């Protein structure tokens, strides 16, 4: 289906091109009318350079820096190109005739007052709306609609927000990689359908119905619905990217459902009408669900056995790299922070308390943006919504960058009145802490923390109710520590334990982020919050470790346990030797994780790895265009903690079938410094050296080629071949002055007419006990050099240069050390000499 979609795309482009040429040839007769400096009312001749209100035959231009408004709507008959601002109210923005609307980089069209963007009955086939990168079209309270059927196109590379729904007959919407579309309503094609091709971010912040709509969500795309998706009449859902919604309802009269190479996350319930099974054979792809409803037992069994159940579900999930609206500009003041767990929208009432998105080289954490709560008691809340943890337990995880603040308590999140009521997670200048209600047998855990650093920190809190009463707070910020408390009688956190009415101050919502809910003026958190995840239930050790793994990989934090996916698949086993500065690349669609570039946030970490050539000016993942090809693939690295010139790095790759680029920032290297890579840390198996791709002191970059079909038991080891300092020469033995001093030799014997004699021994059995490995002598019986290839305890005397004798298993596991190597295979058929020809072992002919 994707292929068909693309073919269609090409066809449409061709048609479009023809139409555009036609349009240009028609338009070339039209005059251009341009808004004058200072702008003004659309309906005033004084606003325009030609001295009259734009005519239907004219091409309208609103240049950069100029604002034009209309309080009676605007009709476009010819074309309009907006680089400045066009504010439309009091009437619709009507596209009439065969026309082209272009909003250029920096340009904005606002349609307010509940008015709409309408393609009216005079719109000829091929009318085009281009929203270029950096452009904004905001229809704040209206719809995009058509009055009659005809082909119209919207090409979005920028940002389009639609206040209500899209009601269109024959419309093609292309939302490209850089594009974001936010719709607050349904997506409805008319009698002749609508096609949406999404390569970027398409967000609906409420429940939506797809009606007579073919929705193609490509591999780079996210279709985020903060509510339900109803797959309705005549609609096709074709996902090869990422889709998340609360409930997914497939009606009986939908047309098609394909999720073949996509990931579909249905947080609550996936339901399908009688007689319809959206998933069959291989087209279900990666499917996560809370529950499944189907009258058809076969379909129910198929969906539940092929998909993966979400347990437990996240109650809150706030991530700085997905505020919701796709705007990633540094300094963006956050009006609403979408909860990826799909339960809440976090909204602020007063501008002064709104936190700010930070997306810059200086503030980002491991190439991901953060949200700043610094200064002025910044905080946000759940409005009047509550967040209880009535059964089993509670878990909270957060990645923060603390800066400064009060020496008292500073809350990352808080609910109730600490510590008597409620629960929370905090980080002050003195302590990291978490609490559950102490007057209901909860406890407060504290770890002395702030003195450690102000670097990115992963906090992790878990509480278990019931028989295994237990509460744990852990902190990872380069060093790791945790504190465990045994609880006595905590069985729930509900209304009485929170005591919301008594302890909320009435103006701030009961659940607060960035400050105490009861006292936001003094207990506010200073610093940035990158991510916050709350499970309002207990989590298993696997879920705890998986959540920590996800956050650690994303933010470059080093953990002291295995790294595993949400599905409990271990992709990096903890290694007691290689445990320093752990970081990784990885993709896990369930967590929206797509880490294309990483560097440990630990101070002194020198290695950056990316899927693409490393550009040190890039500070956001999303600007790296080389994707990780498949979900559930990871490349994680760490080093052994020794000094830089002897440091060995271990790369564990889990199904990571693509190239990566390694940048080491180490002073003193040269443009010829090589990287050595091998399967083992002794650098004997599959050894090869890599020359740098680029060198710009102190940054040196190597390309690490993909190795296919590797599993977790295998790892690669890398080391930089920093040439040792020139050594002090050792001993020179010579009858004449040697021409040079060889610094690399401990012993140099120089002569032009003499040789060297080593001990001549007739029988190795005369050698004293426990000869070391590598001891060499001249065997005078056989007139050959011999050495101990075994150990001191059990010597194995071999002739220097003798072929190896190996089993077939050993031989198949080890390619030849050099072209033309000969080995004896001692259990092969035939038992023969075998030749390494560069690609395989070949048995040599024998009698």
């Amino acid at each position, binding site marked *: 289906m994707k292929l068909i979609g693309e073919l269609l795309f090409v066809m449409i482009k061709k048609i479009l091109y023809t139409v555009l040429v036609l349009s240009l040839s028609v338009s070339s007769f039209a005059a251009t009318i341009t808004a004058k400096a200072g702008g003004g009312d659309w309906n005033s001749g004084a606003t325009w350079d030609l001295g009259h209100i734009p005519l239907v035959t004219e091409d309208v231009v609103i240049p950069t820096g100029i604002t034009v408004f209309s309080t009676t709507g605007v009709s476009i008959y010819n074309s309009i190109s907006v680089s400045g601002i066009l504010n439309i109210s009091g009437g619709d923005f009507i596209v009439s005739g065969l026309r082209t609307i272009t909003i250029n980089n920096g340009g904005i069209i606002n349609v307010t007052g509940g008015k709409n963007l309408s393609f009216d009955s005079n719109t000829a086939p091929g009318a085009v709306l281009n929203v270029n990168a950096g452009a904004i079209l905001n229809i704040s309270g209206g719809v995009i609609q058509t009055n009659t059927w005809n082909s119209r196109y919207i090409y979005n590379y920028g940002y389009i927000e639609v206040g209500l729904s899209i009601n269109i007959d024959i419309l093609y919407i292309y939302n490209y990689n850089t594009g974001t579309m936010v719709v607050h309503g349904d997506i409805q094609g008319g009698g002749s359908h609508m096609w949406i091709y999404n390569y970027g971010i398409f967000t609906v912040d409420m429940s939506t119905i797809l009606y007579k709509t073919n929705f193609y969500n490509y591999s780079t795309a996210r279709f985020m619905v903060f509510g339900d998706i109803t797959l309705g009449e005549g609609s096709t859902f074709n996902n090869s990217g990422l889709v998340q919604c609360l409930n997914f309802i497939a009606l009986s009269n939908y047309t098609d459902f394909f999720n073949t190479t996509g990931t579909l996350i249905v947080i609550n319930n996936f339901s399908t009408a009688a007689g319809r099974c959206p998933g069959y054979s291989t087209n279900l792809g990666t499917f996560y669900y809370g529950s499944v409803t189907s009258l058809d037992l076969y379909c129910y069994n198929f969906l539940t056995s092929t998909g993966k159940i979400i347990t437990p579900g996240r109650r809150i999930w706030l991530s700085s790299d997905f505020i919701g609206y796709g705007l990633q500009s540094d300094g963006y003041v956050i009006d609403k922070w979408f909860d990826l767990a799909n339960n809440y929208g976090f909204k602020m009432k007063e501008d002064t308390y709104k936190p700010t998105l930070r997306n810059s080289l200086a503030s980002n954490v491991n190439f991901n943006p953060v949200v700043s709560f610094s200064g002025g008691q910044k905080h946000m809340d759940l409005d009047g919504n509550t967040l209880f943890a009535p059964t089993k337990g509670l878990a909270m995880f957060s990645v923060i960058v603390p800066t400064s603040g009060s020496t008292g308590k500073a809350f990352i999140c808080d609910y109730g009145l600490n510590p008597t009521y409620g629960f929370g997670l905090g980080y002050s200048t003195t302590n990291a802490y978490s609490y559950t209600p102490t007057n209901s047998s909860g406890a407060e855990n504290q770890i002395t923390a702030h003195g450690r650093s102000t670097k990115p920190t992963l906090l992790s809190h878990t509480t278990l109710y019931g028989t295994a009463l237990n509460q744990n707070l852990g902190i990872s910020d380069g060093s790791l520590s945790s504190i465990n408390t045994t609880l006595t009688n905590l069985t729930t956190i509900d209304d009485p334990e929170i005591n919301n009415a008594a302890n909320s101050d009435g103006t701030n919502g009961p659940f607060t982020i960035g400050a105490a809910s009861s006292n936001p003026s003094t207990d506010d958190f200073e610093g940035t919050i990158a991510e916050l995840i709350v499970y309002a239930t207990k989590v298993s050790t696997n879920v705890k470790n998986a959540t920590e793994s996800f956050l650690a990989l994303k933010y470059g934090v080093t953990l002291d346990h295995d790294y595993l996916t949400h599905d409990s698949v271990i992709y990096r086993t903890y290694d007691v030797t290689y445990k320093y500065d752990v970081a990784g690349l990885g993709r896990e669609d369930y967590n929206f994780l797509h880490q294309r570039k990483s560097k440990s946030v630990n101070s002194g970490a020198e290695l950056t790895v990316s899927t693409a050539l490393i550009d040190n000016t890039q500070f956001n993942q999303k600007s790296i265009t080389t994707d990780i090809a498949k979900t559930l693939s990871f490349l994680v690295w760490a080093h052994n903690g020794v000094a830089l010139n002897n440091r060995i790095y271990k790369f564990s790759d889990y199904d990571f079938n693509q190239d990566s680029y390694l940048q080491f920032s180490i002073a003193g290297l040269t443009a010829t410094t090589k990287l050595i890579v091998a399967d083992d840390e002794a650098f004997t198996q599959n050894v090869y050296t890599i020359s740098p791709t680029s060198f710009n002191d102190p940054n040196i970059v190597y390309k690490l080629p993909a190795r296919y079909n590797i599993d977790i038991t295998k790892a690669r080891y890398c080391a930089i071949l920093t040439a040792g*300092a*020139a050594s002090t020469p*050792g001993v020179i033995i010579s009858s004449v002055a040697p021409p040079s001093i060889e*610094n*690399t030799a401990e012993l140099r014997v120089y002569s032009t007419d003499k040789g060297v004699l080593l001990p*001549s021994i007739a029988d190795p059995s005369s050698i004293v006990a426990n000869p070391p*490995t590598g001891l060499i002598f001249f065997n005078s019986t056989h007139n050959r050099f011999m050495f101990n290839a075994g150990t001191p305890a059990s010597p194995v005397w071999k002739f220097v240069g003798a072929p190896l004798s190996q089993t077939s298993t050993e031989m198949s596991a080890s390619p030849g050390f050099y072209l*033309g190597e000969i080995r004896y295979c001692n259990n092969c058929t035939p038992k023969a000499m075998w030749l390494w020809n560069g690609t395989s072992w070949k048995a040599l002919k024998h009698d």
Partner: protein
Amino acid sequence: MKYYVLYILLFYSYSVWGQVVIPNDEAKIDNSAELKIYTSVTSSKGVLIPQLTSLQMLKINSPADGLMIFNSSDKTFEFYNLDSLSWDRIGRISTYTTALSPPLVKFNGECYFNINTKTLFYWNAKTSSWVQIPTL
């Protein structure tokens, strides 16, 4: 003689010696040997040359031509080949191309590997020719 070496290392310099015999005994000097190391017949000893891991070996800064070490990772003697800029195992079979044929200094049983044809040859002095050893 061991003490001489110790002395040299202590003073962190190098020294030049001519026609050395180890253990020191001038009577054992052999005119053709710049360095001679001998050992007793009944309680024999060998020689240890520097033992380096593969990584340590590769980290040697601009190795001299013919520099020899014992590779403790692979348990093999290797020497640095300044022509190919690589570490080669002592005793390895030479490689040649069809265009660049093996040298004329040959002895019975000498082998070489032809990179182009990926085949092995040995020198047959009787017929005075390189003979291919076929694979099965």
